[in-house]
């Protein structure tokens, strides 16, 4: 199958185990995001795939060719890989077009030119062909870097936090552009990011690596967000409300009402609820507990508000509400849980 296949990859630096039996597959034309805490081995995995580091245990296959395993190592330049790192700077002494043609060896001169022009066109940088890198903005340099990485028609593209040097606005634009260029090129892409929202936006599939270097969950962005398998995965996407309780008759009680679970009766559990999973009502008579808003912060499209449950010594909850929700004009609020955004885990499940 065209694309990348990694089986049973483990890696240690000295006696520090970094990657732990990691498996991964990316069909041609698909984009997989690796998401995990700092130091969990994301860049190590990319370096191993690129051939910048030798495999200690496991197998790496690109387009059905084994490029690395415990006892073999094909050099990076023979793996047909495109690389793009945050600090993977352009060559400052070469013009933009020469930066893009740089990796195109073994082709006729006019074919090289055509290919480079075509790529610059795809990333909308044709007018800058004869400029030099230092005259371009960060976003423009990143576009050129993408053109350079794709010019030799790689079988696999490896991106390590490629947008982290850009400001928020530029980052969103470049993400969208990059995605459309990648989809058109049909290359298999492995992208590392710290940013869960970036992974959700870009990825066909997300792989979560835990601090122990093991894959914790793999799935569609939707599954990772709505069906996190682990407490750790649930918490990746920002602040959670957390309550503790004990399972009784398939239910756990929380100060915001009870929630169903498959976990066995008597188990000590934690309930994690996303801020958008707390629903406010102002209908007056309801069984849901009363809440009192104590603070509110505008967060772009939404407000994050903090509210106290019940009387003054109740617990605090974080609630995400529409930006038009003005706390000054609210009264008689009660809160309940939207079970879609609430997850129950055994307390010892880390």
């Amino acid at each position, binding site marked *: *199958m065209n694309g990348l*296949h990694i089986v*049973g990859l483990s890696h240690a630096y000295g006696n520090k185990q970094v990657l732990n039996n990691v*498996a991964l*597959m990316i069909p041609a034309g*698909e984009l997989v995001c690796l998401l995990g805490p700092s130091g969990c081995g994301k860049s190590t995995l990319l370096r191993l795939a690129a051939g910048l580091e030798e495999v200690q245990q496991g197998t790496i*296959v690109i387009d059905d060719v084994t490029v690395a395993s415990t006892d073999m190592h094909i050099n990076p330049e023979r793996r047909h890989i495109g690389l793009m790192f945050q600090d993977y700077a352009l060559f400052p002494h070469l013009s933009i077009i020469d930066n893009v043609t740089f990796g195109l060896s073994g082709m006729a001169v006019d074919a090289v030119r055509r290919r480079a022009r075509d790529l610059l066109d795809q990333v909308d940088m044709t007018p800058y062909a004869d400029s030099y890198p230092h005259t371009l903005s960060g976003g423009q340099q990143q576009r050129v870097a993408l053109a350079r990485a794709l010019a030799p028609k790689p079988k696999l593209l490896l991106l390590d936090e490629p947008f982290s040097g850009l400001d928020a606005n530029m980052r969103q634009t470049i993400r969208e552009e990059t995605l459309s260029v990648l989809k058109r090129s049909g290359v298999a892409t492995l992208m590392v990011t710290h940013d869960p929202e970036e992974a959700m936006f870009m990825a066909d*599939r997300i792989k979560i690596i835990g601090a122990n270097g093991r894959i914790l969950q*793999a*799935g569609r962005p939707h599954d990772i967000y709505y069906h996190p398998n682990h407490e750790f995965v649930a918490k990746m996407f920002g602040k959670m409300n957390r309550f503790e309780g004990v399972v009784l008759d398939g239910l756990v009680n929380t100060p915001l009402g009870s929630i169903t679970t498959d976990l066995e009766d008597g188990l000590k559990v934690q309930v994690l609820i996303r801020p958008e999973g707390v629903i406010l009502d102002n209908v007056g008579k309801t069984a849901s507990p009363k809440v009192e808003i104590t603070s509110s912060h505008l967060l772009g499209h939404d407000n994050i508000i903090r509210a106290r449950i019940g009387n003054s010594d109740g617990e605090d909850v974080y609630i995400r509400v529409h930006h038009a929700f003005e706390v000054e004009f609210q009264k008689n609020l009660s809160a309940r849980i939207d079970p879609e955004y609430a997850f129950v885990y055994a307390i010892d499940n880390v």
Partner: protein
Amino acid sequence: MVELTETFVLECAELDKDHKRLVEMVNDITDDIDKGVTGNCNSKVLNFVNFAKEHFSREEKLLKKNGYPEAAKHHKHHQTLIAKMEHIQEFAASAETNQLACVSLKRELVYFLMDDLITTDMDFKDHIDSDQD
């Protein structure tokens, strides 16, 4: 088109035969989707799901027989796969009328088979002996 290349052979005849069959079933469904023939998707996916479940129980028996130390963990893994297949069936149910469901169905089937199911089986490759009976 998915293929069971050498990297994914367990060298255990009965399980490799099952995996090969699963690969054929997925290829058949994705072929249909590529051709735009989605009328049989639902029943073909149901066949795939049923065969996968049978395969899991065959595999788990064999792992126990071979005294594989992580047999319980692998059983748990199969349980999560069975839950995942419910999602895949939901996509299949919409495949005939929704183009995006087709795209997701195809994608998820391939990831499910190659990334979730067969790749994880490679963990016990060195612990299993086909000829033992």
